[in-house]
C-alpha cells in the first residue's frame, strides 16, 4: 500500500520533470546559433526556397507557437520527423535505445562486480599492503575520466595488443536474425553464442571505459562503509560464533554496508549514461549517444528533443529503481 503510493507519487513528479525538460530543451536548441534549414539546402538556394522549407517544418512560427504544436503532438505519441533523415523521431530513437541500454547495463555490471570485489578485498586485508593496493587502484580509477580510459584501452587492446574490436556494435559480416534491437539479450535467450561472443568482443572496451571510474567510486565508498560495519557489535558477535573474517564481511557486513553505496550508484549511473555519448562516438558504437552527436551536428531539432527527453526518462527511472531496491533491501523501510 505504502509502496504503491510512493510509486504513484514518483510517477507524478517524473511527469513534471519531463515537461520541464521538454520546455528547456525546446527553447535552448532554438536559441543557440545554427540553422537546420541552412544545413539542408545546397549552396545557391534562393530565399524563397529557404522560406518554403522553413514553413514546411513549421519553423516560421514563433517559438511558443512551435512548442504548443510540438507538445500537442508529443502527447499523441508523435515526436515529429527528423530533419536530417526524414524518418519519425520516435522509431529512430527507440531503434537505438536498446544498444545504449545494453552498453550502460553491462558497464554497470562490470563496475559493481569490480568495485564490490575490490571493496571486499580491501576490507578483508585492511591495514595491510592489499588495502593500500586497492586505494591506489581507486585513486587511478577516479582521476581518469571515461573517455580517456576509452583512448587508453584502444591503444592497449586495439593497437598494441589487438584483442578486441575497437569499432561498431557487431561485425557487419554476421547475419543478425533477431526481431528486436536487444542483441545481447536475444543472443543469450536464443543461445546464439557466436553472436554473443561477437557482441561482447565489441562491447567490452567501451563498457569497461564507462565502468572504471564508477568501479573506483563504488569500491571507495563501499570499503569505507564495510570497514565501519565490521566493527559493529553484530559483526563481533558473529566472529565469536566461529565465522571466518571473509564470511563476516560477506554475510553480516555487506548487506548493511551496501545501502549507502546504493544511493550513490543510482546517481553515478546517470552520469555513466551521460558518458555513453562520448564513448559511443569514440568506439563508433551505434547507440543513442552517437546519434545525439549527429543530431546536434545536423541541427536536427526534433531528433535532439526526442533524444534528450528519452535520456531524462531513463534518468528518472534509474532513480526510481534505486529507491525501490533500497526499500527492498532495508527491512526497516519494507515493513514501515
Amino acid at each position: 500500500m505504502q509502496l504503491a503510493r510512493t510509486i504513484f507519487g514518483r510517477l507524478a513528479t517524473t511527469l513534471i520533470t519531463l515537461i520541464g525538460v521538454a520546455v528547456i530543451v525546446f527553447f535552448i536548441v532554438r536559441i543557440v546559433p545554427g540553422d537546420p534549414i541552412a544545413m539542408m539546402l545546397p549552396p545557391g538556394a534562393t530565399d524563397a526556397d529557404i522560406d518554403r522549407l522553413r514553413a514546411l517544418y513549421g519553423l516560421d512560427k514563433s517559438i511558443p507557437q512551435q512548442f504548443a504544436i510540438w507538445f500537442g503532438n508529443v502527447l499523441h505519441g508523435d515526436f515529429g520527423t527528423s530533419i536530417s533523415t526524414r524518418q519519425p523521431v520516435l522509431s529512430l530513437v527507440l531503434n537505438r535505445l536498446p544498444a545504449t541500454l545494453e552498453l550502460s547495463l553491462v558497464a554497470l555490471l562490470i563496475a559493481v562486480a569490480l568495485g564490490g570485489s575490490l571493496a571486499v578485498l580491501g576490507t578483508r586485508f585492511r591495514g595491510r599492503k592489499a588495502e593500500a593496493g586497492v586505494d591506489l587502484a581507486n585513486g587511478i580509477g577516479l582521476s581518469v575520466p571515461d573517455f580517456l580510459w576509452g583512448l587508453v584501452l584502444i591503444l592497449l587492446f586495439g593497437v598494441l595488443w589487438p584483442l578486441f574490436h575497437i569499432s561498431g556494435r557487431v561485425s557487419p559480416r554476421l547475419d543478425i536474425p533477431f526481431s528486436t534491437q536487444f542483441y545481447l539479450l536475444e543472443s543469450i535467450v536464443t543461445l546464439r553464442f557466436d553472436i554473443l561472443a561477437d557482441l561482447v568482443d565489441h562491447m567490452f572496451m567501451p563498457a569497461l571505459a564507462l565502468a572504471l571510474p564508477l568501479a573506483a567510486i563504488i569500491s571507495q565508498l563501499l570499503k569505507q562503509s564495510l570497514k565501519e560495519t565490521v566493527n559493529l557489535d553484530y559483526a563481533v558477535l558473529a566472529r565469536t560464533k566461529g565465522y571466518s573474517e571473509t564470511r563476516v564481511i560477506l554475510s553480516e557486513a555487506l548487506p548493511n554496508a551496501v545501502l549507502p553505496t546504493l544511493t550513490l550508484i543510482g546517481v553515478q549511473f546517470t552520469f555513466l549514461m551521460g558518458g555513453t555519448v562520448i564513448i559511443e562516438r569514440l568506439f563508433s558504437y551505434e547507440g543513442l549517444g552517437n546519434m545525439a552527436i549527429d543530431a546536434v551536428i545536423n541541427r536536427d531539432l526534433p531528433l535532439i528533443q526526442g533524444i534528450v527527453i528519452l535520456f531524462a526518462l531513463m534518468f528518472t527511472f534509474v532513480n526510481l529503481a534505486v529507491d525501490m531496491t533500497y526499500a527492498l533491501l532495508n527491512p526497516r523501510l519494507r515493513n514501515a
Partner: protein
Amino acid sequence: MTAFLQIRNLSARLRNTGHRLLRSVDIDLPAGVVRGLVGESGAGKSMIGKAVLGVLPASVEIVEGEIFLDGHDLLRMKPAERRRLIGASTALIPQDPLTALNPSRRIGPQITDRLVDILGWTKERARARALELLGEVRIPEPERVVRLYPHELSGGMRQRVLIASAFAAEPKLIVADEPTTALDVTVQKQILRLISELQARHGTALLFVTHDLGVVSKICDSLSVLYAGKVVEDTTVDAFFAAPRHPYSAALLAATPRHNDPASSLRPVPRDVLDAVAAEIAAADAAWSRHG
C-alpha cells in the same frame, strides 16, 4: 580437575602506545561456575572476555600468557581451529541488544546460524531448536518471532533473543558482557533471573562482566576484582561480601549504593586507596620490566 577456562599470566597492551591493558591476569573457571569480573570502566574486564572469545580489537596485542579452553592452548592454535573451538564451545551475551543483532537478518537464523554453518545441522532441525530456545527464554509466539526483524522487537526482547542464541549450541562457557547495562531497570531484573536460571539448568560456566556488585551478589559464585588491568582480589562471593581483603575491594564495596540506607550512598573510592593501588601496580610493572 582442571577448570574449563584457565587464564594464565595474561598481559596485553595497546599496539601503538604500549599502554598496558591487562597485567598478568590469572583466572580459573570450572564447568558450571559463575564468576564475576568486577571493576571500574577501563579496568580491563571486557578485554578479558574479548581475549577469551578471540575478538580483541586489532589495536590490542597480547604480550604474554596463555588461555586454555577445555585444555586447548587458544593463543597457539591455528586461527581456523581456534574459531571453530570458540564457536562450538563458548558464546557471548553482548552488552547492547540494540546493536548486537544484524538489522537486515531475521531473528530465527540469528539464533541458530552457528548450528547450521559451523556445526552442520540441517535447517529444519535448527528451526525447531530456535523455537524451543525462544520458548525457554519465555518469548511468546515463537513461530511469529523467528520471522521478525530485530527492529520489530523491544530491547528486552532482543536481549532474550541474544540469550537464546548464546545457549543454542549448549556451550560450556558463556561470557556475559554487562548484559543488563543497556536495559531498563525493570527489565534488568528479569534478564538477570533468566540468565541465572538458564545457566543453572544447562550447567554452563559463566564469566559475568559487570561493574555492579549488587548483580554479583545475586548470581555469581566467585569474583575477580580488577583495577587497571590487574586482578587485585580473587575470592568467593560469600567471602567477599563478608570481608573483602584488598583495600580497593573494600572501598568498591563501600561505594555501592544501598536502597535501604540512602544516606550512605554514593561514597566515592577514597583518594588514598586509589593511590595505594596505583603504587602497587607501578611496583609490579617495575618488577615486570626488570624481569622482561
